């Protein structure tokens, strides 16, 4: 039995790179989305809800549910399950309505 998904498909990825999540360093593989990189580091939540302030992360995994909205390099409301991770990306927990950039 394969021990990891990468073993299962015989992955030989290009060299990994670093992104940050709320300032903490996270290793991502090229070709992974932001959500996949965060899951790979054991991080499941990167948004808090508008009303209850509850933690949320990827749910539908295919861009339909918008639960995985994250702030990527200062830009809010990016669907982490669709956006590819790039070297040096700064991912921050998106709080509430995601309009922080507009200062409203």
């Amino acid at each position: 039995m394969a021990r990891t998904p990468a073993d299962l498909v015989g992955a030989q990825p290009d060299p990994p790179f670093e992104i940050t999540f709320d300032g903490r360093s996270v290793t991502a593989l090229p070709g992974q989305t932001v959500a996949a990189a965060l899951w790979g580091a054991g991080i499941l939540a990167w948004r808090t809800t508008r009303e209850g302030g509850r933690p949320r992360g990827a749910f539908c995994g295919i861009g339909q549910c918008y639960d995985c909205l994250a702030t990527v390099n200062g830009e809010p409301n990016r669907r982490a399950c669709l956006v590819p991770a790039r070297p040096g990306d700064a991912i921050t927990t998106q709080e509430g309505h995601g309009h922080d950039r507009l200062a409203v």
Partner: protein
Amino acid sequence: MTASPSEPYDLVVVGAGSAGLAGAVTAAELGLSVALLDSTTQSGGQFYRHPAPALGAVRPEALHHDWSAFSDLRRRLAASTVTHLTGHHVWSVVRESGESGAAAGETGETWAVHAITGADGTEEQPVRITARALLLATGAYERQLPFPGWTLPGVVGAGGAQAMLKSGLVLPGRRIVVAGSGPLLLAVASSLAAAGARVPAVVEAAGYLRYARSPRALVTNPAKAAEALVHGAALLRHRVRVLPGSAVTEVHGTDRVEAVTVSRLDGDWTPVPGTGRRIACDALAVGHGLVPQIELATAVGCATRALPDGTLGLALDDLQETSVAGLWAAGETGGVGGAELARTEGELAGRAIAARLRGRRADPDPGRGVGPGRVGELRRRRDRMRAFADVMSAAHAPGPGWPAWLEDETDVCRCEEVTAGRVREAVTELGARDARTVKLLTRAGMGWCQGRMCGTAVACLAARGGTPEPPAERRPFAVPVPLATLAALDERATEQNL
């Protein structure tokens, strides 16, 4: 937004999964100019979702059933004249009369397809592409039913876990319970286990006995039975228990999943008191079947049909055309039936469209029921697989008792954080009788996902135990569109009028 010299295309295909790929390559091989649009960066759709090239997967087929069917379509796509436009999120299709006059076949019209672009649709440049015919192969998304704790991080869609594994080679946890209803659960559990997760249980709300009520559909679809056996054998090998007639009725944990409670259900899916038992896990992958994604079609008035599991699919004629002339559909949009059916319908649609645009009949002798040659063979195959899909759909239709597992404080609408208590209040105190009225009273279904996650649940609660009306699935925008995109359209229209 300048139109390319090839426009209008003969055909625009929306969706590059099994149905769209088959339709696009078939039409192109028959001589049509074809553009194939998909929101992702690759072809394959959800079923054949696979890692990006940079992940260097040597054996992507290890996560797939019938990979060779996809690699064949991919090879034909590469060898074809099809223009494959990735990262195109189509938000609207509009019929525009007369632009290409008599050249546009019987309908004499063109279609405009509007898309936003980029991995998540946030690139500045909106796109408009024109075509003489349209094939919608937009697939399906997962149906969810809420339960206490389902918004906790670590609870993910079963299809979502599968998608993240297939494309990103990641898992949401190490001990993952798989729950809900439908054949997808077995496939998800066997891939998660093969990828190294421990799967303590597959919790299936339905009983599998309902399949036995339709023996004919089973024996005429041996490939489906074989697929189930493959998954069954994989589950045995990974020591995964399958618990039919059961549901996860509670998720435990504060900021992430620590355990779930699994309860026995009666035939109506009402939890049997006192049967709950706790299973430790760090993730839950859950889903209750799939919902055809048909907003683009219903927005232009295509007729729908109610499917045996309570969802709506597009009503299609014998050659895959919708009730709106010039607009065809294939695959899950007509009812969820899997990749092989989608391929068959895609090819059938591709042939029908080519025949229409060339002013010929796709089926030279329709009077004899099934025509000769390839089209007749495709129609027979489709009908056989559709019969099986209907059996499957009926076997996993949610029982009327499922709302009994909701607590008043359970979130039903994840986006707007509307609880079951508030939805029930809208129904019992304020007189709401349908999902739309509940939405207007509570905001359930008004958030980012536009009711895709809570729509089934809200419709059931509004029906108060009666048969829920399927959600109307009419949305002017199939995906959220920035105001700047709409403003740009207006400028363009103004320029054209000058």
